[in-house]
């Protein structure tokens, strides 16, 4: 069966520090991968999605970047965090024309 792992679960980082959130998927090949951010009252905002290794599409210009170094690994990064980067980050995977499956999320607090 397929599983998705996302870590860390919680993270407190100072303003200006770097960020790296990792997501890995098991039990499937060549998935579509997604990073979402959730803020209260704003639903899930799609940040990045990837249809293959090295292929990243950005939905919202901001202080974040994403990379997909391996087929089932998706990384969300920032060189310098801002207060506004605080939120709940969710990784998801999907095969073509199916539903999306989500990780348990990372609560990021920038202080």
């Amino acid at each position, binding site marked *: 069966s397929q599983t998705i792992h996302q870590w860390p679960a919680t993270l407190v980082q100072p303003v200006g520090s770097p960020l790296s959130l990792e997501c890995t998927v098991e039990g499937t090949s060549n998935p579509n991968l997604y990073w979402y951010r959730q803020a209260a009252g704003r639903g899930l905002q799609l940040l990045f999605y990837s249809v293959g290794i090295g292929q990243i599409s950005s939905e919202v210009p901001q202080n974040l970047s994403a990379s997909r170094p391996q087929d089932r690994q998706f990384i969300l990064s920032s060189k310098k965090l801002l207060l506004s980067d605080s939120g709940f980050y969710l990784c998801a995977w999907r095969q*073509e024309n199916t539903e999306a499956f989500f990780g348990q999320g990372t609560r990021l607090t920038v202080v």
Partner: protein
Amino acid sequence: AQSVTQPDIHITVSEGASLELRCNYSYGATPYLFWYVQSPGQGLQLLLKYFSGDTLVQGIKGFEAEFKRSQSSFNLRKPSVHWSDAAEYFCAVGTTGGYQKVTFGTGTKLQVIP
């Protein structure tokens, strides 16, 4: 571009009462539609999905949803709500073809009172 509207930010129902959560979508082709539920601090769990065929779909936990193409709606229903149903509910539309995006609504927070 596709979009999803959930007009109710917050709904309160009594335990045992019926529930309907509204969802309207905008998408140029035949959509893939989903309802997810999220407990606080957790990821999202799929309740049900519509791809094609019967427009009334059954999901887990006693939920159902009806796809109405003429109204661009996919409302979620449950005949009798349990206290454990208190959570946030998200409607989503999935694109077909090249870009494979899933776009979510802003969510409806359900409170269940005894």
